[in-house]
């Protein structure tokens, strides 16, 4: 999968030439400072925004709009509040028979740990649980790629750790390709196979860092800290707070 592209958002030149490749089944993170355009990039790739110049190609095909083969997970409010958990998760399964749909929904409900909440409505759930519903909904549609735009950004620290753990577990079971945008450097190191570091506006991929650490990732290991520091350095940041 490769996409070369030049884009500009409004009159602000947000993205310069972006070249990146993601192999099937890989977990790739895009990190960058706030406002660098990483969400814009993901939205273009996902087909929600159109680039002003150049082309966006996914698997050799130009992106013409959102595609059910590539499901987008949003940061907040992506779950439909008028549907139950069960109905949300089964949302993309209209083609299947009722029996198959129920089976698929049950499978993914269990996978994200929401068994027992099938008949609940999103307003009755916590933020973390709502994100689980969204992830289950994305998975249930059997996409080739999952795009995630800071999906844990609205959650508290502890929940975020739990969600990351569960996401990795699910990813290892389902073997999906994931392109994950985050501003959280630690999150990128904890989750991905490769980290693409974006520069400030107009953004390009300034550094690519391979995270060849074993999973489960150990937050104490020197390898982890080394990778994290590499990203800090690439972004011109100090590891000493208050220095």
């Amino acid at each position: 999968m490769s996409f070369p592209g030049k884009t500009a958002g409004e009159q602000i030149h947000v993205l310069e030439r972006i070249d990146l490749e993601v192999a099937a089944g890989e977990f790739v993170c895009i990190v960058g400072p706030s406002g660098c355009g990483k969400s814009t990039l993901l939205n273009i790739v996902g087909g929600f925004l159109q680039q002003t110049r150049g082309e966006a190609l996914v698997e050799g095909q130009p992106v013409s709009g959102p595609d059910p083969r590539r499901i987008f997970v949003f940061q907040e409010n992506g779950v439909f509040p008028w549907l139950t958990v069960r109905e949300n998760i089964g949302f993309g399964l209209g083609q299947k028979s009722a029996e198959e749909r129920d089976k698929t929904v049950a499978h993914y409900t269990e996978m994200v740990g929401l068994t027992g909440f099938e008949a609940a409505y999103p307003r009755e759930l916590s933020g973390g649980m709502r994100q689980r519903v969204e992830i289950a909904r994305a998975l249930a549609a059997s996409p080739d790629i999952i795009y995630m735009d800071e999906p844990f950004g609205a959650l508290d620290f502890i929940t975020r750790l739990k969600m990351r753990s569960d996401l990795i577990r699910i990813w290892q079971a389902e073997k999906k390709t994931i392109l994950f945008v985050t501003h959280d450097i630690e999150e990128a190191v904890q989750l991905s196979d490769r980290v693409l570091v974006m520069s400030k506006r107009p953004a390009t991929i300034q550094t690519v860092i391979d995270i060849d650490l074993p999973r489960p990732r150990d937050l104490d290991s020197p390898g982890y800290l080394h990778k994290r520091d590499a990203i800090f350095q690439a972004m011109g940041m100090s590891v000493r707070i208050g220095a």
Partner: protein
Amino acid sequence: MSDDTPPQRAARFSWSVILMPLGVAVILLTAWHIAVKVSGHDIFPTPLEVLRGFGELVQQGLLLKYIVASLFRVSWGFSLAVVVGVPLGLLIGWFSPVFSALNPFIQILRPISPIAWIPIAILWFGREDTAPVFLIFLASVFPIAVSATAAVQNMQPVYLRAAQNFGLSKGQLFRRVIFPSCLPQIITGLRIALGIAWLVVVAAEMIAVDSGLGYLIIDARNAGKRYDLVVAGMVMIGLIGLVLDLVIRRLERFDEVRWGYSNR
């Protein structure tokens, strides 16, 4: 900030919800009675006289007849307004050319009080039921259309994007996502419109027809200065208005729309 535990739900019934208004009512009725007696007014009725007036109307079989007449007109006018206003509002909100074309007319017609339409209504429809129904329709259709338009225009873009992501057709998109997401605001528009409709039916009946609660009030005064019946009619109008509002509020309780209103 949210954590991983689901939010608590509080549910408590207390007698004060019924006793407090009842208490206030008793106080107001007593004050009313005393005020009339003290002022020595011989035309404005006391609560007891109003109650007797009620009894009289019930005995003559008029109360039920008039209530049904008014409700009948409101039902027709309001239903027509829903059938016309909701699709119209949604179309205007969704398609910008339609918005550009039609919105100015809505904004011009909307501020014209339905009362101002009464002479034209009588001209077009005579003194039949159709005239009040027309007036109620006019009064209700604008709040309904406007709230539907606002609902579409204020829709969360996330819902649309998520739905498009799953490759829905236009029809499916509307049925499964656009309409359900707009429903809470539409229902709020219905509530407002129903209140207006009930207001208008009374005014319309005072001028245009020979039955109904509005007619009762104007006729009671004209035919014999029966202010006890006038006030009885007003009380009835108020009570039914309350019931109508409560009925429509029930619509807001459904799970499919409850999410659209903040918890109280």
